[in-house]
Every structure is written in structure tokens, then in C-alpha cells.
């Protein structure tokens, strides 16, 4: 029973982690799109982002859907508790998901400068708000302010805390970081030396931002939840903390010195370690100080079915997503020049 529930919890964690890396790169591209400005370089950067993102548009939301479904099917009490306490954060994040996808598509066919720049603005701003509010929700869970079943503090107290805000800031820096790194790779693939340089510098800046916000995040955890911090420093979360702490500056250094080997893997592992660094440290608790995996889990039959469905999802989605990314990286999916 517990073994099955643990397996489902692992699937949930993997889905959130995959979303933080793959979705994060998309959000990051959106952030650079917003910060590109009106100049010629900004225009060129935006074109590169379009070419890089177009083929994989919204594909990464598959991880978000998987995480949601596993959460409410496998751990209904967790889902109920989290949404009862944190509904404003999720509403804002999901509003961002909707606006982002729609206006990214709209701006391609906008025809007309005003419509196009309005679409870009909405796309860019929702690329900031979505990762911020999703991560703020994780921070609020980690801070222990989510009551089991129903809220234990007022909604504002649950949603707004040093940990929720700092987790949100870490998410902004992390998505900007992995977005810039992946765009360096895209610019290299498209042999655009000016854009490699453009995003290389931004990757360095984002590395510094991620280190600073990461430090702020650790201080917030230390202030609000010292027990979580100590199990992050010596526990199941430790390898992930180490991976993030070592590989983030490593990827930043590779960018700084224009060495284009392993930088993408380093950045992906560094960002992918952030969520497990917290989640593994608080395991087996799903809500700190209240709800364990075993307590939150649905009946065994549900987990059997859930894991069968997950296996089918893996069989269907992983090869197709793999093929999509393969074709994308081989430049088979770029729009024809007009």
C-alpha cells in the first residue's frame, strides 16, 4: 500500500520537476522576450524566441496536467488542502497559463503592429506571473501554512509569506537562467553568432540572479522553517541541494568563458534539482507537520490504476515528446522564411 503510494508520489514529484525544467525554459524565453525592448537586437531576439519556441509551443504543459491529475486522483486530501488554502495563487498561475499560450499564438498571425506588440506584452507578463505564482504555492506548502483539509490560517497569511515570495523569486531567476541557456543553444544551432553572444551575457546575469535569489530563499527557509533547512542540509534533499549549488555557478562560468560544452545539461540538472531539494527534504510529509504520503493517499485500487495510466502516459507521451524535441533540435520544424 505505502509502496504504491510512494511510487505515485514519486511520479508527482517527477512531473513537477519536469515541468520546472522544460516549462521553465519556455517561461524564461518569454521573460527575455519581454525584456528584449524595442530595438533592432530586441527584435532579432524575439524572432529567435519565436523560431525556437514555435514548434514546442505549449507541449510542456503536458507535465502540468500530469501533476494535477496525479495529485487529485492519488492524493485527494493533499489536493483539497492545497487548493482550499492557496486558491488565489493557483488562480493567478492558471490565468497566466491561459493568457500566455493564447497570446503567443495570436501574435504570429496578428497582422498589425499594435495588436502584435499588445500580444507580446501579455505573453511576456504572463511568462513572469505563471512561474512566480506556481513556485509561490510550493513555497507556501513548504512553509507549513497549509492546513489539512481546510485552511488553518487566513488565505492571505497562507499565500503571502517570506517563503512563498522567495520561492517565486527563485522561480523567476531559474526560468530566466534556463531560458537564456537554452536560447544560447538554439542560437548556436541556427548559427546566429550575434544572438549567441546576446543570450550568453543574459545567461551570466541570470546565473548571478539565481545565486542571489537562491540565497534569499535559503534565508527565508531558515527564518520560517529551520527544520526543513536542516533536513535539506543533511538528508534526502542534500544531493539535490549540492547539485543546484555546484552546477548553477558551473553553467554560469561556462557561459562567462564562452565554453559551449555541457552547459545545457548543467543548467537543466541545476534547475531540476530545486524542487526535489525541498520535496525530498520534507518527505514523507506532503504538508509539513500534518499530512504524510500514507495519510493523503487514495485507496490502493486507485494507485494501481493511476500507475497503470502513468505507464501508458509514459509509453505514449515520452516517445512523441522525444520525437518532437528531436525534430526540433534537428531544425526540421522551423517556419519557412517569408
Amino acid at each position, binding site marked *: 500500500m505505502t509502496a504504491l503510494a510512494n511510487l505515485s508520489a514519486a511520479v508527482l514529484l517527477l512531473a513537477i520537476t519536469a515541468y520546472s525544467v522544460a516549462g521553465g525554459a519556455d517561461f524564461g524565453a518569454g521573460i527575455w522576450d519581454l525584456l528584449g525592448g524595442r530595438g533592432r537586437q530586441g527584435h532579432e531576439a524575439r524572432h529567435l524566441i519565436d523560431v525556437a519556441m514555435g514548434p514546442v509551443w505549449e507541449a510542456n504543459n503536458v507535465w502540468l496536467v500530469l501533476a494535477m491529475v496525479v495529485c487529485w486522483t492519488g492524493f485527494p486530501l493533499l489536493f483539497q488542502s492545497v487548493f482550499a488554502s492557496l*486558491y488565489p495563487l493557483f488562480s493567478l498561475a492558471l490565468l497566466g497559463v*491561459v493568457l500566455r499560450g493564447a497570446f503567443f499564438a*495570436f501574435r504570429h*498571425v496578428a497582422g498589425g503592429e499594435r495588436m502584435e506588440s499588445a500580444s507580446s506584452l501579455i505573453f511576456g507578463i504572463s511568462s513572469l506571473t505563471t512561474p512566480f505564482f506556481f513556485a509561490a504555492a510550493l513555497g507556501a506548502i513548504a512553509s507549513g501554512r497549509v492546513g489539512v483539509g481546510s*485552511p488553518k490560517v487566513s488565505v492571505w497569511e497562507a499565500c503571502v509569506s517570506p517563503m512563498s515570495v522567495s520561492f517565486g523569486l527563485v522561480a523567476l531567476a531559474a526560468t530566466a537562467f534556463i531560458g537564456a541557456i537554452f536560447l544560447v543553444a538554439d542560437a548556436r544551432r541556427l548559427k546566429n553568432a550575434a544572438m549567441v553572444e546576446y543570450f550568453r551575457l543574459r545567461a551570466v546575469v541570470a546565473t548571478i540572479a539565481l545565486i542571489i535569489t537562491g540565497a534569499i530563499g535559503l534565508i527565508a527557509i531558515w527564518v520560517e522553517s529551520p527544520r526543513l533547512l536542516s533536513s535539506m542540509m543533511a538528508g534526502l534533499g542534500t544531493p539535490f541541494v549540492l547539485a543546484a549549488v555546484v552546477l548553477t555557478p558551473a553553467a554560469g562560468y561556462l557561459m562567462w568563458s564562452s565554453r559551449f560544452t555541457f552547459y545545457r545539461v548543467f543548467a537543466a540538472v541545476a534547475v531540476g534539482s530545486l524542487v526535489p531539494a525541498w520535496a525530498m527534504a520534507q518527505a514523507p510529509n506532503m504538508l509539513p507537520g500534518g499530512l504524510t504520503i500514507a495519510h493523503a493517499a487514495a485507496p490502493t485500487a486507485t494507485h494501481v490504476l493511476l500507475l497503470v495510466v502513468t505507464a501508458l502516459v509514459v509509453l505514449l507521451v515520452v516517445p512523441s515528446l522525444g520525437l518532437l524535441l528531436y525534430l526540433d533540435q534537428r531544425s526540421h*520544424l*522551423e517556419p*519557412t522564411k*517569408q
Partner: protein
Amino acid sequence: MESGWVTTEVGRQPWIVYNAMRVSEAVTSAPAAYVWTMLTVLVVVYSIMAIIFVMLLMRLAAKWHRDDLEGAAETPEEGVPYGPQPETA
């Protein structure tokens, strides 16, 4: 199809899960003001998106129609932002 759906939803009242859970037991603990605000925001956002969507579809249709008349485009799908591209590119 929509009517059938409404019939089952309304016919099931006051149950949300038939004979297992009442709507009153399932309702959110969030304040009514929040529910109304969120519903309004969603209706407004989706309406705006629906209007823009139809507007853009009509604009694209007009553009392709023009292209057809002028024989400008080689293939009907030329200039579409998504999907596989012809090998000639």
C-alpha cells in the same frame, strides 16, 4: 449535446456525486466574493480571447482567399506558423 449535459447536471440535484455527495458538501470554503470575482475575470478573459480568435481566423481566411485569387502562394499552407514545412525549404 449541451442540452443532454444540462439535463443530467440539473436532474442529479441536489447530488453532485449521485447518492454519495451533496453539492452543499462539495462547495468551496472560499468566500462568495472571490468566486464571483474569479468567474467574472474568466468570463471576460475568455470572451476577449474568443473575439480575437474569430477576428484573426477571418483575417487569415481573407488573406488566403486573396492569395488564391492572385496566385501568390505556391501552397495553401504557406506562411502558416505551425506544422511540418515542405521539403523544399
